[in-house]
């Protein structure tokens, strides 16, 4: 804490009266400070100022007196004076706001730089030190042991936040969205943690600032550039189980008017096979490269920033179809490339307003090939190509210490190509245009209270326009106690397949059309004589809507003792208009034509508690617990009506009640984490444990829900340990690290393919 000192503005005025009194006003930087405490020094006598900052206090004694004026968020002030008999002493007290010096600043919650403890929504920060200490190499490593977060396996490693599947969390790199999802999952293993200063995770909806996908949360990968006069170069290699290697070389330089950082990272694995009895590995062999450059230059008062990244992955696996003599083996190869470019210019217009203009372009392509091993023929191929371009302007107006306004707007253009996203009847490839505008105002009437209101409007070419508001409050009754509350909305745009898919399954004969392709797709099938019967008039359908939520988040944190912080929180998300397929026509082959509709409603709600303690300077401990309910409304209603039944493994039927409901698949009702890190001289040990209770993964008894014991993945405890030792060299430093993930060798077979059992690694890093 740095306290700034300046002399109180003090005015002593005399007035004639029979009993002596002191009265006055309390302000800071010209604005009244409400509800400050005014106390006579060395006594219990005192009063509180009103909302306008005025107070009045009778003085019991004649002559000199001393007042202590204090208010949350301000430096306490001692004022001395003297009163004659019957005199009313008038004071104008000026308080100084406390200036907090902290490294923990975040940008994701409000799109402005803000101290972590001043953010009114649940937010977690993983620092570069944390990442190094735990030996994280990919983003999944950084997030897997955080309270309330779970990794999921579905076409890549996804992230579950507040009980939502991974398609509901937005992943950003320096504030811009990383594109490229498969079946809704943005594979966290695609993203190296090299070059990151920190990872910020905001829980609860942030669509009022970021738009689509920020329904469950936002993860922002924040890079940094060195300060002027600093230079750094380093290299790190790591090798571990299953031939997994990670190597990074990086260099950075900071000068008076410019700075730059560049790195290249290679990540590779031989994969592994959990089912050696059958052909084909569970996780295939792959090699992944990432190159990244960040630049910053001052141009007069303006600042120009440039970020660029390119990655590529090659993957080689195999699988077989059929069995015995009919078995046919296939090579499965995949190639992924993606890049992004992000120039940004910040220009201060005057002392109050600053304008940031950013352009962002990204492209993500994949190629998948299945080749018959026997005759070399191509069995299946799928290409996908996504392009994303955005232009955005944001203005930050810091009116005074109490009012900050952010307004912005922009346009987004997205283009798709690929086997499942063919051009429409007029020959146009799927493309979408979007315009958006957002505004946020932060108002801090006093250190006690901070209010943040924001809203965003999104108009999209292919789904209904929407307005997304959010309001959050932060209340600080004392420096050690913080309450936060927010109510807001989140949304997720219909996925590409839900808008643009035009797909007929050759094997089964059914067809699926995205919302923009339904009419022409049906017309084409009808012209070919393939439609037996239409169920509905598709021309009458309303435009498809984004899936949307209303969410409440409440929390409190208290610094109980120096070095001991307790946090509790709760969340409740009510989600509507979830998109599902329904048949819209019958084909002459007996199969159906499916389209997408806004149908389902779910809710997720939960309670979090965590304790962080630093009993010794070198020892840090934290523990957390989460209770989660993630449920489908329709199923809850049916269970309450008693219309759901199940079958035991002997096929006997019985009726279910709400208590039999295992919730949405993949959600554990209970989870806990434990972290400890201890530093002794140059050596640091980091122990991380996480436990989740059982969660449903399948329905075997034909009621669509997880209720039977064999429909659950058993409770899973995982413990990771990393030990790091640093050495000072004549020039530079060396860091050696060994670690074991999943120390106690927990596995769940093919139910959790990302859990191969205990793995070990060792790494060496050298830095100048």
């Amino acid at each position, binding site marked *: 804490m740095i306290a700034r000192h300046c002399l109180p503005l003090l005015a002593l005025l005399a007035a004639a009266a029979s009993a002596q009194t002191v009265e006055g006003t309390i302000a800071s930087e010209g604005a009244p400070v409400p509800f400050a405490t005014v106390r006579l020094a060395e006594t219990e006598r005192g009063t509180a100022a009103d909302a306008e900052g005025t107070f009045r206090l009778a003085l019991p004694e004649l002559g000199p007196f001393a007042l202590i004026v204090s208010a949350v968020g301000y430096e306490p002030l001692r004022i001395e004076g003297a009163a004659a008999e019957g005199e009313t002493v008038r004071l104008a007290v000026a308080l100084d706001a406390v200036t907090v010096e902290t490294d923990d600043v975040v940008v994701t919650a409000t799109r402005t730089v803000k101290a972590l403890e001043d953010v009114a929504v649940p937010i977690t920060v993983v620092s570069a030190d944390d990442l190094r200490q735990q030996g994280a190499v990919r983003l999944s490593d950084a997030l897997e042991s955080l309270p309330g977060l779970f990794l999921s396996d579905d076409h890549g490693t996804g992230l579950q936040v507040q009980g939502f599947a991974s398609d509901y969390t937005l992943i950003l790199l320096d504030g811009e969205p990383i594109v490229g999802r498969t079946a809704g999952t943005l594979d966290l293993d695609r993203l190296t943690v090299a070059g990151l200063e920190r990872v910020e995770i905001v829980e609860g909806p942030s669509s009022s600032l970021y738009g689509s996908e920020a329904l469950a949360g936002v993860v922002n990968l924040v890079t940094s550039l060195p300060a002027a006069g600093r230079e750094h170069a380093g290299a790190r290699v790591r090798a571990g189980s299953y031939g997994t290697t990670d190597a990074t070389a990086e260099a950075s330089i900071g000068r008076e008017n410019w700075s730059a950082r560049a790195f290249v990272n290679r990540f590779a694995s031989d994969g592994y096979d959990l089912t050696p009895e059958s052909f084909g590995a569970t996780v295939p062999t792959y090699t992944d490269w990432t190159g990244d450059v960040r630049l910053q230059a001052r141009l007069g008062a303006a600042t120009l920033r440039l970020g660029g990244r390119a990655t590529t992955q090659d993957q080689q696996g195999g699988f077989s179809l059929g069995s015995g003599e009919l078995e046919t083996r296939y090579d499965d190869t995949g190639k992924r490339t993606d890049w992004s470019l992000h120039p940004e210019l910040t220009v201060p217009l005057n002392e109050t307003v600053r304008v940031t203009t950013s352009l962002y372009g990204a492209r993500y392509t994949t190629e998948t090939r299945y080749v018959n091993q026997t005759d070399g023929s191509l069995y299946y191929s799928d290409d996908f190509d996504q392009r994303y371009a955005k232009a955005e302007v944001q203005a930050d107006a810091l009116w005074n210490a109490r009012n900050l306004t952010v307004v912005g707007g922009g346009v987004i253009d997205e283009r798709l190509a690929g086997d499942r996203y063919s051009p429409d009847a007029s020959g146009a490839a799927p493309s979408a245009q979007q315009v958006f505008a957002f505004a946020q105002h932060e108002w801090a009437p006093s250190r006690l209270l901070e209010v943040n209101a924001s809203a965003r409007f999104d108009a999209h070419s292919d789904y209904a326009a929407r307005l997304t508001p959010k309001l959050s409050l932060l209340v600080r009754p004392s420096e050690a106690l913080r309450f936060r509350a927010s109510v807001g909305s989140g949304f997720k745009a219909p996925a590409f397949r839900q808008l643009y898919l035009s797909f007929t399954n050759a*094997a089964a004969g059914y067809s699926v059309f995205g919302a923009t392709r339904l009419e022409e797709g049906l017309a084409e099938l009808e012209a070919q004589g393939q439609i037996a019967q239409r169920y509905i008039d598709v021309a009458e359908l*309303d435009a498809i809507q984004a899936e949307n939520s209303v969410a409440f988040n409440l929390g409190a944190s208290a610094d109980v003792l120096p070095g001991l912080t307790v946090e509790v929180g709760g969340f409740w998300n009510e989600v509507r208009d979830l998109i599902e397929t329904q048949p819209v026509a019958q084909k002459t082959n007996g199969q*159906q034509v499916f389209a997408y509709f806004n149908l389902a409603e779910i809710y997720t709600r939960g309670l979090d508690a965590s304790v962080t303690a630093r009993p010794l300077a070198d020892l840090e401990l934290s523990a957390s617990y989460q209770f989660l309910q993630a449920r489908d409304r329709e199923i809850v209603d049916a269970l309450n009506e008693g219309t759901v039944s199940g079958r035991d493994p002997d096929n006997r039927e019985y009726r279910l009640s709400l208590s039999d409901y295992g919730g949405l698949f993949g959600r554990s009702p209970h989870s806990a984490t434990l972290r400890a890190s201890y530093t002794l001289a140059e050596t640091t040990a980091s122990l991380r444990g996480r436990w989740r209770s059982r969660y449903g993964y399948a329905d075997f008894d034909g009621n669509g829900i997880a209720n039977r014991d064999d429909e659950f993945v058993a409770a899973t405890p995982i413990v990771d340990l990393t030990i790091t030792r640093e050495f000072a060299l004549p020039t530079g430093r060396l860091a050696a690290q060994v670690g074991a993930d999943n120390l106690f060798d927990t596995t769940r077979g093919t139910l959790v393919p990302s859990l191969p059992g205990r793995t070990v690694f060792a790494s060496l890093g050298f830095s100048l």
Partner: protein
Amino acid sequence: MNRIALVALVGALALTACDSGGPDTEIVNLEATVVTDLPADPTSGRDPETGVPFSNNLFTLYDLDAGEVVLSSDDTDDRSDSLGTAWDIGFQGTTIIFNSGTSGPGTVQAQLLENTLFAELTTAPADGYLQDGENTCPGAAFPGGTSAGSPYVICTGGGNGWYNYDSSQNLITPLSGRTVVLQTSEGNYAKVRILSYYQGNPNPPDPMAPTRYYTFEYVLQPDGTRDFATTEVEIED
């Protein structure tokens, strides 16, 4: 035919005192017959070029009264028995048909009861029966209404008829609480419950097991009444 195993569940016979003068009869509990691994047009591999599965595209037709297969989906030569009234229920893939209406020359009347446990259904409903082609299926629920689906008595599609389809596991499981009730062409009432779609009736169901093999159980009341609990049979000396 020889692939069909008819398994009568072992149950205790409930004997009653016989009248001295009348015919020698007794009241016995009706027992469920379990039919295992009835082929319903199973696939024999895939076209390596297109991935389309090979199958005969034919139904297996079953006579509940006689407890036997009338025509298997494997019988490709002579399908003339499909034009008769002996068969009651037919299976091809996930589609189930009855011998009446748009599906056959018979007079089968059937309905699919929801939220009805097979064991708890002791009496067939008096009404509510349909023939194939007469049904209104929950085709599409969309904002603003619901439209008609296929007209089969047992609606097609996951969640609509007898089964649930879990795309993440690629698994077809019979919906619990759904019981088929029908009156055969011979006028007998029967209740039917599908137990498995996979060969060998694996439990838990195994999506890797060969599909299109039905295991189902049924209770047939041979006396024409709607009672599924007991029936009167003659005692054989």
